[in-house]
């Protein structure tokens, strides 16, 4: 396999984030480092969570991985290819869902498939996703007419139906109540287990990170840096009240509280 020339013959992980820095101009036109020199890698099929306090640059980091933004320094590679722009092979679930309010639930799910496959896209696949997301009977509703949980499941389906090699999730359960959140978490877990899609989940819920992921990347703010990457290899399915789960939670809380 050929790799990018800059990368030489280095042995790369599936996703490789190398020395990336993102700068923006603040109100006084001065350069401000949003995230600073971040390094980490993710293996194929792995589930990584990114946690950190609000404003520490989680969304910024995720956007750099997707190619929606470009880093000022460093680079992101997926399967040996340098990311320069967004692509269907990297799904992105936006922090607020980002569904098209003017399209029905079904249309929101099928639009991407239609864009990729053309007019004769796989309608059965759309039906399949509507079913596994529990959206039957709501195909013709508009996003404003369904619950927050349904909207997030629609957003998940919209990205997953394109069978991306990497799925980026920006706090998909952030705005949901506790019951709905657990429900969507289980769906995400099952989808990950069944499709073996590499997933990166941004969250500020420690339990969610422990429940779902194999590695947890803890960030610190101002500027956003990697504090630590914690291994999280409790056996699946995980129980939120098991001793190991609680131990893991204490450990993460400690890491997060030491500034």
């Amino acid at each position, binding site marked *: 396999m050929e790799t990018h020339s800059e990368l030489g013959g280095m042995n790369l992980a599936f996703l490789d984030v190398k020395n990336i820095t993102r700068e923006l101009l603040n109100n006084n036109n001065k350069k401000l480092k949003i995230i600073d020199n971040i390094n980490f890698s993710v293996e194929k099929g792995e589930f990584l969570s990114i946690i950190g306090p609000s404003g520490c640059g989680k969304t910024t980091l995720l956007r750099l991985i997707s190619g929606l933004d470009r880093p000022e320094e460093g680079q992101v590679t997926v399967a040996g290819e340098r990311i320069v722009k967004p692509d269907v092979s990297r799904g992105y679930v936006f922090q607020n869902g980002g569904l098209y309010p003017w399209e029905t639930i079904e249309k929101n799910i099928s639009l991407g498939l239609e864009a990729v496959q053309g007019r004769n896209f796989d309608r059965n696949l759309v039906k399949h996703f509507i079913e596994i997301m529990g959206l039957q009977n*709501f195909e013709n509703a508009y996003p404003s007419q369904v619950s927050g949980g349904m909207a997030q499941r629609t957003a998940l389906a919209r990205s997953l139906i394109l069978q991306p090699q990497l799925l980026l999730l920006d706090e998909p359960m952030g705005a949901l109540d506790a019951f709905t959140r657990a429900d969507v978490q289980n769906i995400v877990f099952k989808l990950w287990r069944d499709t073996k899609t590499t997933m990166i989940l941004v969250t500020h819920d420690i339990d969610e990170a422990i429940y779902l992921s194999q590695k947890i990347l803890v960030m610190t703010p101002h500027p956003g840096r990697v504090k630590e990457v914690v291994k999280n290899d409790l056996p699946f399915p995980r129980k939120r009240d098991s001793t190991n789960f609680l131990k893991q939670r204490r450990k993460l809380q400690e890491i997060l509280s030491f500034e």
Partner: protein
Amino acid sequence: MSFSKKRENSSNTSEKKYWKSWNIKWNFFSILSVLVALLENVFISSKENVNNGSYRIFLGCYLIYLVFIYLGGHYFSLKVRLFGGHFAQLNFILGILLCVQDLLTEKFSIFSLPYFVSFAQVLDQINEDKSLLLQSTGASLLLWSLSFAFGTLIGIVLGILIGRYRQFNYWSLPFLKVIGIIPAAAWMPLTMVIFPTSYLAEISLIVLSVWFPVAFMTKGGVENISPTYFEAAHTLGFNEIRIIRKVVIPGALPNIFVGIFTATGLSFTMLVISEMVGARVGLGWYINWAKGTGNYTQVYAAITIMAILFSCIFIVINKLQGTALRWRPTVN
């Protein structure tokens, strides 16, 4: 069906729209006031020479309609009840107004011919001129539809190009702004000589009044679409055509309709003015012709027809908007 939210919403909105509650007293009064208007017209003798036939038929129909609303609302339909209850007071006042105008004009000649005419006389004139008025209305409607559709199309296309493409914006916006700010009527003398036929000149004037508001509202609409929708489009593999079709147009549609409503008013003005000046047919021409012969009743007749025609057009556009924007959360 398990999905009933929409229906729930729509019944809520019609309850909000028709907020005056059903009160049998007002339904009764509304029937009474129209009945009084009819009796007054029949039994008080006129000072002016008027054929009241059409007016009495009109009042008769109005009366029957009110009785149906009353019975329907009282015994049968909830929808009629909401609707009829809400408008009962208005119908009552309308009956009184009809009665008063009849007394002031043809009965006692306090406001007298030829500049003030009774509604009865206007209706009689409409009846008399019906074939000519029908022809004029058809001609006006055709001219308006053609020009309005064309102007709207130009406006939307320009608006999207300006709103979406920086280069297009840079090179065209300054010129379009200057052209667009000129009132369409100012071009009238020029269009009359530049275009080979007066019909084309009329079309061009209406188009000129329409494209500008539509283009600028569309541009604003495109620019205000949340960037997330474009970013999502990129991660979903949309090409540019698909982005225009699935993101830009629907995203700008609420604003496009604001532009269309502004343009509609302007286009009516321009329709009448351009028909008055250049045309051989149409309601504007009819008014101008009536002015020439000094028959002001005909002017009132044309105005009445315009009121009905333009209201219908507004209703149709409103319905179109409701359908096109049905995805919007219902505002309370």
